[in-house]
């Protein structure tokens, strides 16, 4: 019997299609999307050309993804080949993750340490500050560009390639790099500000999100798994700011869901052997809304639950929701508490792709993945994977107690770097 699915046409209309036809339609629509955005794709490629011209004329410096970063190549929505650095990474941390979902970052660092990837975790880093811009209009293009440029210069000094953890920083940096290359006015203002803080304008050749790094490392990660996760069903939520904000430059792969969805995260789960499920509201945002998650919680929570959590659970019966952005983890995880209190039964654990991959590789669920900072119940997931979370919890509690009694903390440590920092920092 031929498998078929209903395609929602809106306003309650549905049409029954063979699944194979539906997938073909979605693929066609993705191709069309790349070409529909005529101005966008061509302008973006023109911007990359102009960046090279500006470098040749000495107006800017470009931080290239050279061989020292052992790059892998991926294809983006526009069809362009993009270089993804794999070693000597400058970790651009996310303001939305480090304070309250620390397992997001510790899981990523743990994977890198396991794979012997040298990296820099710098205290000379600010967030992109675009939270303020998108959330409240309390920044402007010159400030956002200058913040981007200072962070990129800090990475350049360290001779490490920026790897951006946050979807919003990734999207914002693509926007402001575009603006700085295309607008002399903005560029000149940024250069004047950078001069005041003793920095130069160095633009990265490629802007790379951490999920793209996981994507190119997926087979290596899968080769090191300690647990068989082929019995796990997962749903994936891709962050809007990775694949909708300057959509041209995010990674797609025809072998991952026929290129109908962005490749990262889904590809990692598939490489690990997970059964990745589709659902009808795949393209919807998580409901985060920046200011809304903080000060207008009802709208954020309602959207997250009724457009994401509930349909995901009902349609896919997935064991876990995998996400690659900090705001999305927060919204989707935290929005299940009040709805549960109101009697809505659907619930699903929400973790990042890095946390899930680390768990499969045998990372400690508390010491490394820090799952106790997550609110939706993840214990069932761990039991299904075969992880003894009770013993792990006891080990973690003992560790916390030992720290209280003065024991030395254990930190994740990357292997020694092969590249030396470039220059002495000059700002005083």
């Amino acid at each position, binding site marked *: 019997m031929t498998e078929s699915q209903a395609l929602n046409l809106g306003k309650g209309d549905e049409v029954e299609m063979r699944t194979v036809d539906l997938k073909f339609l979605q693929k066609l629509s993705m191709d069309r999307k790349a070409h529909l955005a*005529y*101005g*966008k794709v061509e302008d973006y490629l023109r911007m990359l050309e102009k960046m090279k011209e500006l470098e040749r004329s000495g107006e800017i410096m470009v931080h290239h993804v050279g061989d020292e970063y052992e790059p892998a190549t991926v294809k983006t929505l526009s069809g362009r080949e993009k270089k993804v650095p794999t070693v000597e990474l400058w970790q651009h*941390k996310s*303001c*939305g*993750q*480090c*304070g309250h979902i*620390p397992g997001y970052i*510790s899981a990523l660092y743990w994977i890198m340490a396991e794979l012997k990837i040298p990296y820099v975790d710098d*205290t*000379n*880093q*600010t967030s992109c*500050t675009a*939270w*303020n811009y*998108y*959330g*409240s*209009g*309390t*920044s*402007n*293009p*010159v*400030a956002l560009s*200058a*913040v981007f440029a*200072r962070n990129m210069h800090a990475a350049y000094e360290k001779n490490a390639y920026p790897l951006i953890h946050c979807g919003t920083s990734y*999207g914002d940096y693509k926007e402001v790099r575009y*603006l700085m290359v*295309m607008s002399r*006015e903005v560029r000149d203002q940024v250069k*004047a*500000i950078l001069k*005041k803080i003793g920095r130069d304008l160095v633009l990265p050749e490629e802007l790379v999100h951490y999920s793209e790094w996981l994507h190119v490392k997926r087979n290596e990660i899968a080769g090191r798994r300690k647990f068989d996760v082929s019995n796990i069903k997962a749903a994936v939520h891709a962050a809007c*700011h990775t694949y*909708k*904000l300057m*959509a041209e430059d995010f990674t797609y792969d025809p072998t991952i869901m026929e290129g109908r969805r962005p490749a990262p995260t889904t590809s990692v789960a598939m490489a690990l052997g997970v059964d990745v499920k589709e659902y009808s509201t795949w393209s919807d*945002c998580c*409901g*985060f*809304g920046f*200011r*809304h998650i903080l*000060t207008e919680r009802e709208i954020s929570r309602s959207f997250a639950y009724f*457009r994401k959590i509930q349909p995901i659970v009902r349609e896919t019966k997935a064991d876990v929701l995998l996400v690659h952005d900090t705001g999305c983890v927060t919204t989707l995880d*935290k929005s299940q*508490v*009040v709805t549960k209190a109101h009697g809505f039964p659907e619930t699903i654990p929400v973790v990042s792709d890095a946390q899930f991959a680390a768990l499969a590789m045998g990372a400690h669920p508390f010491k490394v993945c820090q799952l*106790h900072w997550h*609110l939706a119940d993840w214990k069932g997931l761990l039991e299904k994977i075969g992880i003894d979370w009770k013993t792990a919890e006891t080990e973690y509690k003992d560790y*916390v107690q030992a720290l*209280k009694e003065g024991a030395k*903390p254990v930190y994740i440590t990357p292997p020694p770097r092969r590249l030396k920092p470039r220059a002495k920092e000059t*700002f*005083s």
Partner: protein
Amino acid sequence: MYVTKSEKVTSRLGSLNEDGWHYSGLPGLQWEAENARMGDRKVMKRIVEEVQADPRFEDFYHACINCGNCTAVCPPFRLVDFAPRIVVQKVMHAKDEPELLYQMMDQYIWSCFQCYSCWEVCPAQNNPGGLVAMLKESAVKHGLTSAKRSLEPYSKILYKVMTTGTQITPDMHSSNAPFRDWGGGKADLAKHLREERAAVAVETLAGTIDKSWKVDDRTMKELITIEKEAGVTDMVKQTLKDVAEMVEEAGEELGVPK
């Protein structure tokens, strides 16, 4: 033979009903009617001129064909009175009717999630989310009442980002912090925050409470300098004066002159 522009505007404002709905009560834009009536036309015109002169404008706005694709995928549209199509339409007519843009800026735009789903699907390559971001920025710069109202509960985040470049810091999870609806699990965590934070296996995060990670003083000094030089501190002063002054004080402590 033709109505003048001012007659047209007066007539439109007059047709708002008591709830501020236009177009004879048909679903549409909910206006801050009273504010618009009292608004300064010079400010309204200046806002339009600034928006149209912005280097982002020609990339973000082309011409709206009214297809509604943007609204169909807009998350807030499902729950509140907000449609990105309306935003682009008002931007399209802003030069002739700056009042329309101003009214929308005074409340309507603050519903946008800035997810950019609208940008991805627009066949005319408009970027409604980008236009909203520009308009929010303008609302803050001109100290609009709606910007003050929207941002007051947000002051702490604004201050944290402007001074440390980080936010949602661990100290915002204490028992009297604004995350009580995150349930009992979060409350338990808040009780043992310092211990839990000390046990994070990343050295730059471990033990940090008032920031998301350890940030060098020099880094914060650079950040505050950028905000000052780019005009952000002055802009915020128009809407949340206290926050801007606190940022300046923090900057002075780090050696950034006022």
